[in-house]
């Protein structure tokens, strides 16, 4: 199903994330498996991988209860990320090159307030975030890279 190289990269991430020296500044959404390892280091978490249906999930869990899942398609590209936990992980890092587009879409929303549920959608990027102190959750995905047959609702 998935290329062996992705799995071996993820396995390496499980075993030896701490040994990697070169960490890209930002990667991730739209990035490759190397960016997952970089995230695991940044978030001080451990990585586990599981097969989805036509994609691979790399899950980073920290001891403080933050969980990040990065979804890789068959080409080894991260097409979605999701998160949950007592704080929101750094979206600037998770969204990578797409972060400026997120900020621009945020700025276009003109209702101030607490907004415990947030959705920004452009043709290239969707970010859905919610929750409150102690329990945040959300996801971001690249609609054009979602594998056929995968629904956004599956990206949890």
């Amino acid at each position, binding site marked *: 199903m998935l290329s062996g190289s992705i799995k071996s990269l993820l396995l390496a991430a499980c075993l030896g994330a701490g040994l990697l020296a070169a960490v890209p500044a930002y990667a991730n959404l739209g990035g490759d498996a190397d960016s997952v390892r970089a995230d695991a280091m940044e978030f*001080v978490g451990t990585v586990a991988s599981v097969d989805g249906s036509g994609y691979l999930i790399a899950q980073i869990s*920290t*001891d*403080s*209860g933050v969980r990040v899942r990065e979804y890789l398609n068959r080409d080894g590209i991260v097409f979605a990320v999701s998160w949950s936990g*007592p*704080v*929101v992980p*750094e*979206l*600037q*890092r998770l969204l990578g090159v797409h972060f400026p587009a*997120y*900020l621009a879409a*945020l*700025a*276009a*929303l*003109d*209702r*101030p*307030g*607490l*907004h*415990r*549920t*947030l*959705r*920004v959608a452009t043709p290239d990027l*969707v970010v*859905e*975030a*919610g*929750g*409150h*102190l*102690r*329990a*945040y*959750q*959300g*996801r971001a995905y690249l609609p054009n890279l979602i594998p056929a047959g995968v629904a*956004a*609702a599956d990206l*949890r």
Partner: protein
Amino acid sequence: MAGGMLAACIGGNGVTATGSKPVTPTPNTMKLTVDTGPSAATGQINHAYVTIKVCAAGSQTQCATIDHVLLDTGSSGLRLVRSVLTAAAVTLAPELDARGQTVEECVTFGGGQTWGPVALADLSMAGESAQKLPVQVMDDTAAGAPPPASCGANGTLINSVAGFGANGVLGVGVFAQDCGAACVSASTPLPLYYGCTSAGVCTAENLALADQVTNPVAMFAADNNGIIVNLPNLQNANGDISVQGELVFGLATQTDNALPASGLTLLGTDANGDFTATYNGGTTALPALIDSGSDSYDFNDSTIATCSTGAYVGYYCPAVAPKSAFAVNSGVGVNNATNTVDFAIADPNSFVANAAAFAGLGGGGGATNFVWGMPFFYGRPVYVGIEQRAAGPYTGPYFAY
């Protein structure tokens, strides 16, 4: 009459003298107003505000009366915009950690984050008070340490009156502290509380419960086990200009804050502050809360159209309005009631432009939780029980209605 009123206020228990009329407001009750917001940020919708009095801790003179503080049952702790305090010549002393560094906080609210020091205030609301209350000062004037790179990395900083549509946020949710145990002894401190050097270098750190930003109600001498939010039904389907209601402190502590003996749905929450809801017959139990800090019912329903133009882009614009829906709430733990709530989503483009209160505002497409926001409050009392505090037969945390 004036004497009776004074005695009732000083007594602080809401019991009026024999022969006098009931006093309004009683010392545990304060006015709650839904209007278009503070003068610096008008045009707000479904924001419920209170007016509070804060003083620098220990001071009788360095005090400010601050209007348009947003009532938020979805968070815990008081957060005030620094420029509002400064305009009233009030400087709150920053809290220091064990190393003598200032304690600062970064909190995510939707699309932005607040940043600023934890400081100590004496707070008065109605006849209640909390001394040396740890509050967050939202640093809109960048007077303190700059936020670390991780704060603001989730969007924008929303420290200002314009960002919140309020002069502050009064968090009166189900918890005594905003973070709780997760911030006390984590091996890797959560990026929430920071210790900042005088040079402005900030590092995430753990913080004892007593030093965390605290729900003021939990620090009251009495009436400290929860609150009641009372807002009336709206008069107009297309929006009311303003709404008057009341915020009541304490549950089953006085004659005016009893829990109803029957007809009450009391929903215990988990350690995150959520009960569960299933939407329109679905099978997924969504984390749910009753949240006066949200302006709308927020939930995911991809069959309801989303507004693409107008003043409500991103909210629901049902093709046929009102769109009827329902959700089943279930409590968690021993307070495990189940109750079905019918509600309706309106077309916000039918709302009157200068109104402040709207029933039926919905949004939250893509959400993986369920938020009973402000529309839920119109026409029913909402009870919020603080964790580990008893009220009659019930112990918090819970929401009830």
